[in-house]
């Protein structure tokens, strides 16, 4: 198997941010992303997803290390202070590097 290294950026945050994040990702050059609804609990309390403003989303982007870091820095500067948000990077292997 011919695998290539890429970075997986995962963001879990308030559903209210969905449109803003998508616009940010486009601007920062993310090649593509996957969005899903999420539930959980953390320092900002239970986020049960039973309610429009109470829901969480989980956003995953596979891209180059450089873009992933750029996005992560942007998120930290822009949203960490006032929004419930977690974001982390992980190294992953992909089969078609031209896609990411």
């Amino acid at each position, binding site marked *: 198997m011919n695998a290539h290294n890429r970075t997986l950026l995962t963001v879990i945050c*308030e559903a*209210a*941010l969905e449109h*803003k994040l998508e616009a940010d990702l486009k601007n920062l050059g993310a090649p593509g992303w996957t969005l899903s609804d999420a539930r959980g609990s953390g320092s900002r309390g239970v986020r049960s997803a039973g*309610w*429009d*403003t109470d829901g969480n989303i989980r956003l995953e982007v596979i891209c180059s290390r450089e873009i992933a870091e750029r996005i992560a820095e942007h998120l930290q500067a822009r949203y960490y202070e*006032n929004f419930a948000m977690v974001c982390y990077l992980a190294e992953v292997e992909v089969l078609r590097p031209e896609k990411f």
Partner: protein
Amino acid sequence: MGIDPVVLFFVFGLFAGLVKSELKLPPALYETLSIILLLAIGLHGGVELAEQASAALLGQSLLVLGLGVLLPILAFILLRGLRFDRVNAAAVAAHYGSVSAGTFAVVVAYLAAREIFFESYMPLFVAILEIPAILVGILLAKGVSRDTDWKELGREIFLGKSIMLLLGGLLIGAIAGKEAIKPLEPLYTSMFKPVLAFFLLEMGLIASGQLGSLKRYGFKLAAFALLMPLIGALIGALLARFMGLSLGGTAMLATLAASASYIAVPAAMRLAVPEANPSLSLTASLGITFPFNILIGIPLYLALAERLIAWGF
């Protein structure tokens, strides 16, 4: 007349939530129910509006718009008096200046059950009242600030779910007219109450969840959440008398002025004023004001309307 069963569904939901029962309605069902309710209210208003539209409506709409600007300012002054910081006071005030379509649905059912007439174009006022408080709230929180993304916010405010559904229903009803809408009529006649009952069951569950966090914010917030609807109702009822609305219309505008938003405003404020604590507003509007209006407020506002009319206002 006994207690309305739809109110009992709400009490049931509150109870089930407070005892931490396993009962939980799927989120998609709640969405569906609220969409049906809003469309039904809009359709009904539209059908009647087509039959009795008048030029006076324009002036009345402007007055209602003014009410939407006045209420959040009053709420803000009251909250500042209770020593809430500026940003949070502004965010909570925006919720109380705006309206709750769920509360509106209950007052529609309440008046219909008592065969009290009300002006058909009331749903239009719901849509009108939803908007200005959000803008006033943002201005109160940060003044005219350059970093507010008005384009994004405008979309959120004017194209929000409840406004779209209400106005869409109004237009469809007005264009189609009474005869053509017949097959859809059950939406706002026989089907309305069953849908409202399930909706209120879920609202009871949600409200009980908010009550839990009340302890954290204490007496001041509770006092505001009970006082503001009474002030709003009085102003709304007086304005309705000034506009010459009927008994039902007066009770309805009082209820609208008393109600606090919990869908459109939280979403908009979260983006526009992220520094504000969202659970402060939701605890007040969902945990206290909504139950208060459903259980005690609406009959009270109807009595207020009757009293004002008897006094010759």
